[in-house]
């Protein structure tokens, strides 16, 4: 059953980034599966109002005051009138928020619950529990997620983190990883196999990439924003030692950030300019062109929920050396990666091991692309997300959706199907904390009164219904549909 879905996040194009492309890819694939998807984000510079992207993806850029790093001002209520208008206009059934640092997303989930819509939240990042910023974010997250219908996390580590941060029922949290568009991350020597069946022998003839000799130059690629939490300090410490012990190694570093100065100082102090190439920041579509110049991808990050970039690197046929932090160990199989502890010595050692493995031609990097293509695809992500939508809308029975695990201890709470009754919602919010619970209840009550007021002042009847983008059924699907229609007839 097709749904009308609104993706809400502060972060969307034209700003580049992981969350942004996640939203875009997921929306596109959901549209391909027959759903109607709109995106609500705040206005970016020079981009206000309604825009259509490819495939009829409609984007609402709502004018809003931006305070910090493209996050909207948290005003709790001021977004409600226009949000209600959009939701009614587009006949939305499911509101899907993204990113825990996005105020837009939190507000939208609150208002959507008040309006009686199903909500989903996708968490893309990991947070600790110690520092003041995290504590505040966690409290806010708890507020929103007390009443959300389902949560999606990008890795199992992220799920554990979110469950702890927001005190959620673990069965209400699904793990659906990010994906990559494998076609955009092909290795240099990759011939598309679309016509393999016709020319079966051709795939055998496909030129094998020539093996790396003992004295060939091995290039290590690093593409990351140069921030502390991306492990740039480790990188700075490791590069001179790697280069000292492996003379035929070159580095390509792409990305910019506050640590770029330290990196350059290190290069100057050790006179490594001819061995290390600094490219500055590259655009996302150029990433592949940088990656295919190298043999090893080095990822020294200190925290990472998923690490899409290492999947992209593996897809480009690079051997990956990465730190064993966050969700990274779950992402790629052993034969594509060498793990290191987040320590300088271990990173140097792991890189040395990776170089040795490549030189002895033990690693079949030419197969990586096809393997990654099988592991991660946005179509798969969309299919799994669709199951979540089905579960929360009641199209999949709760027993099937949440699973029946006798004796596992999970079947405890009967509160998974969240009712919209105000008193039930208040009960859920009240449990958030001694003071916070009362404050949250107050917010919810005001939100409800605001909703009643808006219903009276701007009645639904006066809001026009927007016409949906005409759906394009491709021939294959039509054929499929015809077949499924015919099937019952033939069987009976």
């Amino acid at each position: 059953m097709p749904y009308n879905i609104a993706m809400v996040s502060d972060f969307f194009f034209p700003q580049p980034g992981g969350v942004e492309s996640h939203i875009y890819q997921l929306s596109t694939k959901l549209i391909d599966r027959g759903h109607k998807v709109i995106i609500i984000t705040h206005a970016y510079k020079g981009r206000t109002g309604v825009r259509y992207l490819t495939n009829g993806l409609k984007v609402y850029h709502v004018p809003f005051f931006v305070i910090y790093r493209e996050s909207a001002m948290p005003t709790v209520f001021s977004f409600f009138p226009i949000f209600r208008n959009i939701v009614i206009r587009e006949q939305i059934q499911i509101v899907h928020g993204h990113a825990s640092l996005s105020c837009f997303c939190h507000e939208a989930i609150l208002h959507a619950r008040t309006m009686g819509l199903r909500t989903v939240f996708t968490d893309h990042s990991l947070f600790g529990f110690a520092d003041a910023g995290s504590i505040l974010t966690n409290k806010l997250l708890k507020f929103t997620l007390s009443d959300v219908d389902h949560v999606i996390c990008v890795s199992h580590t992220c799920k554990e983190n979110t469950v702890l941060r927001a005190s959620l029922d673990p069965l209400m949290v699904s793990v659906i990883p990010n994906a990559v568009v494998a076609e955009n991350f092909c290795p240099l020597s990759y011939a598309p196999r679309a016509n393999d069946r016709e020319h079966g022998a051709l795939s055998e003839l496909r030129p094998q990439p020539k093996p790396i000799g003992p004295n060939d130059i091995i290039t290590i690629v690093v593409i990351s924003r140069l921030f502390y939490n991306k492990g740039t300090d480790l990188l700075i410490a490791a590069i001179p030692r790697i280069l000292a012990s492996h003379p035929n190694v070159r580095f390509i570093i792409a990305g910019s950030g506050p640590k770029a100065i330290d990196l350059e100082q290190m290069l100057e102090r050790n006179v490594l300019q001819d061995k290390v190439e600094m490219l500055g920041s590259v655009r996302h579509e150029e990433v592949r062109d940088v990656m295919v110049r190298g043999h090893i991808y080095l990822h020294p990050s200190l925290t990472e929920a998923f690490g899409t970039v290492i999947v992209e690197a593996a897809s480009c046929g690079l051997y990956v050396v990465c730190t064993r932090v966050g969700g990274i160990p779950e992402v790629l199989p052993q034969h594509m990666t060498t793990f290191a502890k987040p320590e300088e010595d271990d990173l140097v050692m792991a890189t040395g091991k990776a170089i040795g493995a490549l030189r002895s031609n033990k690693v079949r990097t030419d197969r990586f692309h096809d393997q990654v293509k099988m592991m991660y695809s946005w179509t798969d992500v969309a299919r799994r997300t669709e199951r979540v939508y089905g579960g929360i809308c009641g199209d999949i029975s709760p027993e099937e959706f949440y699973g029946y695990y006798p004796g596992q201890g999970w079947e405890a709470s009967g509160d998974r199907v969240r009712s919209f009754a105000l008193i039930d919602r208040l009960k859920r919010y009240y449990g958030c904390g001694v003071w916070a619970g009362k404050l949250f209840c107050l917010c919810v009550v005001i939100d409800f009164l605001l909703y009643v007021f808006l219903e009276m002042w701007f009645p639904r009847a006066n809001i026009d219904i927007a016409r949906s983008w005409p759906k394009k059924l491709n021939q294959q699907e039509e054929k499929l549909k015809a077949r499924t229609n015919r099937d019952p007839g033939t069987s009976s």
Partner: protein
Amino acid sequence: MPSLLGSPPIPPPVPDESHPNRVGGSRSHSPGEQRALPDPNRLAPEDAYYAPSLLKARAAAAAKANRDDSLRTLKGNGNSAAVATLRPLSAVSKPDAEKDVRSVRGTSRRRRRRKGAWKKLLWVKQSYPDNYTDTETFLDHLQRNPRVRPYDFWPLVADSTVIVQHVCSVVIFICCFVGIVQGRVSPVSVVCWGSVGTAVGWILWDAWAKADESASGPERVVEGDTGSSSSSVVDSTHPSGTGQKDSQVQGLGLSMGSSLPGPNRYGDSRVSESISPTANAIHQYPIPPEPSRPLRLSSRNRQRLSTVKSAFLIYFALLGLSPILKSLTKSTASDSIWAMSCWLLIMNIFSFDYGSGEGAGATKFPASLSTNAAVMASTVLASRLPSTTHVFSLMLFSIEVFGLFPIFRRQLRHISWTGHVFLTLTLVIAAGGAVGCTLRGGWAAAVVGSILGSILTALAMGGCSWWLISLQKYKNVVIGPWDPARPIIRRHWD
């Protein structure tokens, strides 16, 4: 996938272990065993739901295991509080909450065998739904209170003497100021007594340094050489005590030489390198071990000379500055001055470096913040005084109290514990007496004040220590793989 039919064997091998993070050792014992003896450091997923019942079971199991007593109670208590804070929403009361955990295990394992083990991996296509939560691996890397160290009462009280000392010296300074303003105490006598104390302290300190030098023998010369050069590069985490003292020597040289009396609490000589190159240069000569003895003695004397020299420098600089300082804040109302000096002294007390100068992580505020606040407080206070002599005396006294006295105190604590306790006692009595004197006047009031002050201080020390220990049960540090890793980087500054 028709397009992939003709491809070589692509599917990557699916590993046996369920999580790549797991090391072989943790897999070796069966999960049943693991469950029987729950690690109190870990939160099992059931904790989320059956907080009360499970905690009881866990506490019982923990009681069976004979662990360190204090640590266990601490962590056990921490557990209950932690679950309560982590899980306020999960107040789901269930009739079958007291189900046997073992049978749960059994059924889950049977089922798993049927379906194939779930793996904590993202790249494997699994037959489990996306929201499947594996009881065994879920949150298995969570640690709580991993680095917690239970406090003992008496060591805590002993450590609090440092704070008491500083607060007392601040109180004494304030009382002296009040006495001077009210005309009950002559500023010259105050500064004379202060200077006598400083001189005695310096002589003691010098004797310690000398004893230390002769005690560690000739090999210290070489070490002192390398030590000083390394202490200029390594920051405060200098491991060797000799290097510590060595830099203390330079620390005093700095505080005297640079009319900015900062107790050099970093224990490094980076600052002094920039300010007083002569003092440092002595140490950086590559001295051969044998013929160094006469040179070293002269270096000692030269250091003394430079100390005396800088003392005179400060003395005359203050003398010259006094008229300016006197009229510096004349246009400011007295009320503002009192408020400001109050805040500045509070800032001094709170940002003062109470560490012994050895720990690495103790340096959150620069030590100069504390000293600067105190000196500024005395500067603004000095401008309320009637004459240049008054101003000069107060300023000199403040430098002695806030700049030099902390260095002496730290060194004393390092050298002799009895002396430290004795000094604390003296300071407490003196501060109490001074407060009594200031409030009432007369010797009787001073005696009553010192007795009252001592009792109050002892109560406060005990009470605060007890309070801190009792607060420990609320400690709930949750650490897991989601925390940003702390990179371990070896520093090389070649």
